[in-house]
């Protein structure tokens, strides 16, 4: 799992032996289910540097910025239209990623 790899390699470089806590951010449109992630974390961390660590799983709301009128808004499915000018296709500024915000270790 890339979560384990990302933390393991960073911790390795810093000489951290054990991770005690971490915060994982799941974008609203990251195509990852928070429930599945929670389940995976309870089972896949056994025997790794993350074994026994407490964690926070948080959802990040999506945000968009309209390229036509510049308005920032919370995109809503299915069309994700700009509430200012009604146009579609505005890129997401966040909400599609899956990332580790921070971890704590010793």
């Amino acid at each position, binding site marked *: 799992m890339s979560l384990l790899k990302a933390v393991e390699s960073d911790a390795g470089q810093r000489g951290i032996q054990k991770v005690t806590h971490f915060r994982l951010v799941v974008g609203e449109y990251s195509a990852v289910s928070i429930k599945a992630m929670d389940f995976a974390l309870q089972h896949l961390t056994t025997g790794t540097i993350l074994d026994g660590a407490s964690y926070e799983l948080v959802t990040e709301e999506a945000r968009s910025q309209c390229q036509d009128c510049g308005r920032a808004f919370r995109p809503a499915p*299915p069309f994700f239209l700009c509430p200012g000018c009604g146009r579609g*296709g505005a890129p997401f500024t966040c909400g599609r990623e899956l990332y580790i915000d921070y*971890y704590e270790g010793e």
Partner: protein
Amino acid sequence: MKIYLGRELREANKNSAADNRMMLDRSRVLMVNIIGSPGAGKTALLEQTLRHLSSHLTIAVIEGDLYTDADAKRLRGLCAKVIQINTEGSCHLEAGQIGELLVKENLLHTDIVFVENVGNLVCPAAFDLGEDLRVSLVSVTEGADKPCKYPLTFRDSHACIISKTDLLPYCDFDLDKVTGDLQTINSSLTVFTLSAKSGEGLAKWCRWLEAHVAKKKSALNSGLAVPSRE
């Protein structure tokens, strides 16, 4: 000690996708990533497409499936090369797997590499493979609500194929509504309606592919044509 990482966990995939895109641009090979639910007609579309194009284009196909090589077998003999990837349970292909094959299997000497992604309308859409064109399929038997149920998949595609149109008379599928919804979701989407069975609409799709091959071959800005996909 508290360490702020802020690291995107699919960063590795993004990097591999960028590498693939660079290799493909340098070699002027067109890569097409085909995404659709199980049974939407991805392999049937490829069978017919290869029949039309392999007389004048060198084509390779990468087949992504969970376990079997049944789809690869269906395509063997129809083009220069068919390679099977078994994801062993994973519901999508990743850019690293594709990059490895591009090099190892000499796929950079072809004109087109088609990738049939694992049958799934959600997860493959979150993994850029470095393709030039992303094509999503929805068959008329799946129901007219699919674009609105999986909007991001269609939003991130260059083209959408509404497949199995020979079955339209037997399905409650409002073609105009679906086409309208797709255009609202993504106004630059090219929509094809076709049937792999009757051949209706296939010629237009093949011409579109040929035009993209020609464009890629003549691209002056090779190595720069990186479409953004956020």
